[in-house]
């Protein structure tokens, strides 16, 4: 298993190197940051001067090599817009995004696991369609609409929760609910079908025949086996909770990485875009690795080779 992990880490480095290169090229295809930094009435001379002082007039390969050389030491250069090191700007946003993603993930599991289990146990009956229909509404409603709706009800009308911003636990509730509503359907539906499969298998019949209570059969035997595909998807969902929070962060003025990324792209802030893209790639690679490793714990039949 250890050599496998080393191999996986090496391949992760290759993936990150490729992502770094693609990010470098793509962001440069998107346009000239100097044009956006200066007011439209700047002269061509003023553009040239600023471009030179930012080092953007150097040959592309010099810029590329400098950029690659900085990566192992986590130096991504200075943000063109904020004038601060990219790592500093990025790290300042990690807590808010992590907090939101963790809360949304917890809410997702809290709602999706009971909902999916309930639906599987009541397969084909009214309860099943009711629960699955309800979670589908969450998935098919646009975030900016449901977010605004929650704000209007809970912040403006009832005044129970703050409308937006970052602060205590009370600020977290509405954005986390908004973000979780989307993932609930994905997880609940998958768990339902996976659980239906497992419930029909021989060992469940054996367990039931042994005289175990339904709660034990479902909780101990069925859920654990049905969890495998769900864990994979939840792993992927972590990625989309981190990255897909962009709209939620906009609506709730949440100071996370999603909003930072959008602004960086709009401003053509090359170093910052490169930094955020690499950050997301690293998270995805890491989560995938962890998901694979968790299989061996959940199911002893799986061996990483």
């Amino acid at each position, binding site marked *: 298993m250890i050599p496998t992990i080393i191999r996986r880490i090496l391949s992760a480095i290759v993936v990150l190197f490729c992502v770094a290169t693609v990010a470098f090229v793509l962001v440069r295809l*998107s*346009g000239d940051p100097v*044009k*956006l*930094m*200066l*007011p*439209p*009435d*700047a*002269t*061509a*001379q*003023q*553009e040239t*001067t*600023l471009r*030179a*002082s*930012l080092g953007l007039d150097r040959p592309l390969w010099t810029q590329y090599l400098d950029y690659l050389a900085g990566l192992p030491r986590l130096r991504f250069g200075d943000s063109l*817009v*904020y*004038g*601060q090191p990219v790592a500093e*700007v990025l790290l300042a*946003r990690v807590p*808010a995004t992590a907090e939101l993603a963790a809360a949304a993930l917890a809410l997702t599991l809290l709602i999706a696991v*009971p909902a999916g289990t309930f639906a599987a146990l009541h397969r084909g009956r009214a309860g099943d369609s009711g629960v699955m229909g309800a979670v589908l509404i969450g998935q098919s409603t646009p975030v900016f609409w449901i*977010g*605004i709706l929650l*704000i*209007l009800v*809970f*912040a*403006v009308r*009832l*005044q*129970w*929760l*703050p*409308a*937006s*911003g*970052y*602060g*205590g636990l*009370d600020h977290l*509730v509405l954005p986390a609910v908004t973000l979780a509503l989307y993932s609930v359907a994905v997880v609940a539906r998958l768990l339902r079908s996976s659980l239906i499969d497992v419930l029909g298998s021989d060992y469940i019949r054996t367990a039931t025949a042994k005289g175990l209570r339904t709660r034990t059969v479902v909780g101990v035997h069925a859920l654990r086996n049905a969890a495998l595909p769900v864990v994979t998807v939840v792993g992927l969902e972590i990625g989309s909770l981190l990255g897909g929070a962009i709209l939620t962060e*906009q*609506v*709730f*003025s*949440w*100071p*996370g990485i999603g*909003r*930072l990324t959008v602004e960086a792209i*709009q*401003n*053509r802030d090359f170093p910052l875009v490169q930094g955020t893209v690499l950050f997301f790639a690293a998270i995805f690679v890491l989560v995938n690795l962890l998901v694979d490793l968790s299989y061996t714990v959940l199911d002893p039949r799986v061996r990483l080779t």
Partner: protein
Amino acid sequence: MNRRALLGLGLLSLLSGCATGPGAGTVLRIAQPADPRTLDPHKISDMPSMNALINVFDTLTTRGPDNRLAPGLALSWEAPDPYTWRFRLRPGVRFHNGEACDAVAVAFSVNRLLNPATKSPIVELRNVSAAVPLDELTVELRTSKPDPIIPAKVSLFGGVVVPPGYLAVAGDAGFARHPVGTGPFTFVDFQRDRRLRLRANPGYWAGPAGYRDLEFMPMPNTSSALAALQSDEVDMVTELSPDSALQITGYRGVSIRNYPAVPTSYVSLDTTDGPLSDVRVRRALNHAVDVPLLIKAVMDGKARELATLIPRESFGHDPAITPYTRDLDLAKRLLTEAGYPNGFDTTLTARTDSALLAEAISGLLARAGVRAAVRLLDIGTYTARLTSDNRRALGPMYLAKSTGWTLDGQSLVQSNVRHDRRQSRWNSPEADRLIDAEELGIAPEDRQRAFTELQRLLKDQAPFVFLFQSDSIYAMGDRAHWQPNAAGVLRMHSATVTA
């Protein structure tokens, strides 16, 4: 399920106790679409950044409520020769750290801005070659060519004065983390994407502000910002569009205020070839676009019709020049005369955030037979094409908007009229001569004469479709009282807050 639902509700009501947060008292909380990009005033050129930092820093000159240029850190100014502007400074002003704000500090600030190593995006001082202190309270700005509006240009960005002693110790990065100015508020702390907190400076030279705390919060989504206003999390929402203002009209405790301002909208026409090279066609377009109707229908009445490009509050505006008459028959007649009895096909490019206005203009043009397909571009792409060397990158017609915060006509015409400027799509030796006259002449009377002639010429030759200047629109809660000047800058020193 039921138990869980109840638990959820219980949790919500438990949390609700702390929902309102620290709001009451003497704090003024302002929602802006964005944070300041950095807190170093020499490294920003956008309005949201300036709006926050103008409360920490002072400028050499300023604009009063009547929009006239007024003394700031400089008490008086004069041009001893066409290449020099001499400023006499206000005595006894100190930075928040106690450092003296004198001629050395002013010269240091201007020279820091001009130094390429500063990487400043501020472009107005392009003609200034150096700043030189003459004595403790006198400083000269020397220019490479005559620049009559230097005093107006140092009323914002380029006129900000920073402390040389503090910068030498803190360095650029330290200064941006904890800015020190001479302004009415001192810096408290800044959490990017959350809030910038400032506190009234008790020793401010114009007297302290009437309240203690000033906070700026970035809220990119207008609907959320308005919701935050309704639930008393902010006191004021800035930069509203007329349609978002309508969303909230009529709510208790919230008032929508609009004030005359200078952002000027127009349509640039490519006069180099095709139908638009014919002046009769360009006049026809001006007769066809019913600007009063646009203002009523799209701007909810919160804009004022303009005869040409120069807004009312700017130096150079001549009220004697009247807008085009709106006359569809005349427009059609002119098009027929020019050889387009059935109109023609063209495109109108606009930024995505002015889609409504572009569609409305296209609709009005269609009545005269001119079929202008609207093409929308995101802000980044639009700006890149606007400033590219290809003057036709935005197509035959594009909708543009400029804010001449200098309140001088020059800012509106400097980059789009003279034939060699990058956004000019018109070649008129007469216009070039008038631009030179207003740009290089120091005497205000001569400049006004040039502007008057230029506006007559612009109206006659119609290289643009002239539209309107739009108001600044704010939503305010009950507690905040404040009125902006025409440049729309958020100088909050004059605001009052009732508890």
